[in-house]
């Protein structure tokens, strides 16, 4: 299972989301690879789930993965519910 996080640069917001998700996965005892991606080059990469800020939605419309859009990037509860929800759907 590969979870990618997306932002413009690929090391700011996406890195923060990755760290939050790592914490969540660890607490839940789930094993998955998490990778921060940048908007410019992500289409060449593969992931099962892509987590992104809600305003990135237009860039992700045709991307073949489960897309998780986050409204409040620092709301750990929202990230947790949405990511775990997506994981449940896929398993």
């Amino acid at each position, binding site marked *: 299972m590969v979870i990618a996080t997306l932002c413009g640069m690929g090391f700011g*917001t996406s*890195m923060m989301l990755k760290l939050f998700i790592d914490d969540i996965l660890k607490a839940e005892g789930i094993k998955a690879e998490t990778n921060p991606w*940048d908007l410019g080059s992500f289409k060449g990469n593969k992931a099962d789930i892509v987590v992104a*800020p*809600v*305003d990135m939605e237009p860039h992700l419309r045709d991307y073949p993965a489960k897309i998780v859009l986050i*409204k409040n990037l620092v709301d750990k509860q929202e990230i947790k519910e949405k990511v775990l929800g997506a994981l449940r759907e896929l398993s």
Partner: protein
Amino acid sequence: MAVFDAILSLITLPAIVLGFIACVGLLLQKKAAGDVFKGTLKTILGQLIIGVGITALIGALSPIQVFFEKGIPSGGFETFVTYDEAVVGAVQTANLANLGAEIAWTMLFGYVVHILVSRFTKHHYIYLTGHMIWVQAGAFALLFHSFGFATPVVVVLASIVDGFYLTLAPALAQPVMRLITGSDEIAFGHGQTLLNMLGAWAGKLVGKPEDSAEKIEIKESFSFLRDMSVSISIIMLLVAFIGAGLALSQIGVAGFQEQISGGQNWVVYTLLTALNFTAGVLVLLQGVRMLISEITPAFKGIAEKLIPGAKPALDCPVIYPYAPNSLIFGLISGTIGQVAGMVVLALIGWPVPLPSMIAAFFASGAGAIFGNATGGRKGAWLGGFLWGFVGWLLISFAYKFQVFGDLSALGAVGLGFTIPDAIVPGIAIWGIAKLFGL
């Protein structure tokens, strides 16, 4: 002695020092051996990729500077690109007089000081924005290096300033962050802090927070600008064609193709120059990504163990969802501010930083959000403008007076720092050093 020399040359090689930091971080997190090896290797490769990107970027930048030199007759002004990651990446790659290693060690020990300051003062913050940790360490190491100190002195002094900065900047911004986010959960961790605070202070004078920019309906989306490859291409194409147009007006098509493009058609040459610059930036960013992707989690893991309950200081985009309209106001007024700053600088004959879409979107956007928090929509417009205008004057000042030393001689040809959190403390310390005749 040979062994000692080998060790010495290793600990003065930036890529190796950064790899070492990542390796220690991964070991402290008790990662598996395979992960430790992978992370260490990727960090070293990241630093080497940055060097490749820098070469391409500077290679494409010099023709654009030639355009402006040829295009503006008699006493034409000097132009340069303002891009923090490029400055630090370039001087670290060149590694003249151990500077690259000094930056890497400052990054490590500066963070140690930061953890101590956050632990033992009332300001419990953890600065987690990886590229800014690297850039700030680079700026302070450059600053003390420029005074001619020996390597250990540079690392000690730069680490102390860096460590205090990493704790105090989020603390300074926190009152405004509470207004923006409506909570006390997260802090601001980006080198923009001082100019964002200028926006917040100015906002207070011109408007009321109740008159928020966020009450206006805006349908337009600027989200395509968040794709670096698009936004940098647009701005560099504009800049390159304006420069090429100026050059053509002075030396004509034949002169252009003879003196600048080596016989190539001027349109093709200008187009390729602009896009090659963007390609260089993208390679550079890939290097930065690999460099910090292992170090940031390590710093986070260690800091959280040592400072329970600390607030994370995070990258600027975390505040964008709270004020998307202000972000767009800032993009517009910030661009105007940059152009106004360029005009003033050209008139007084100072070096002119070329416009930056990154600064307009990420920095003026954040400045506008700070302004909106204290002064509503008027504050947002003013905050974005001031970031561009005052920012451009500061950037030019630091470049002209070589506050961080002679960057061109150190490998960063035609490049300057952008972020006020490097430039303002830099100017203060540089000024004090001047008083003491350093």
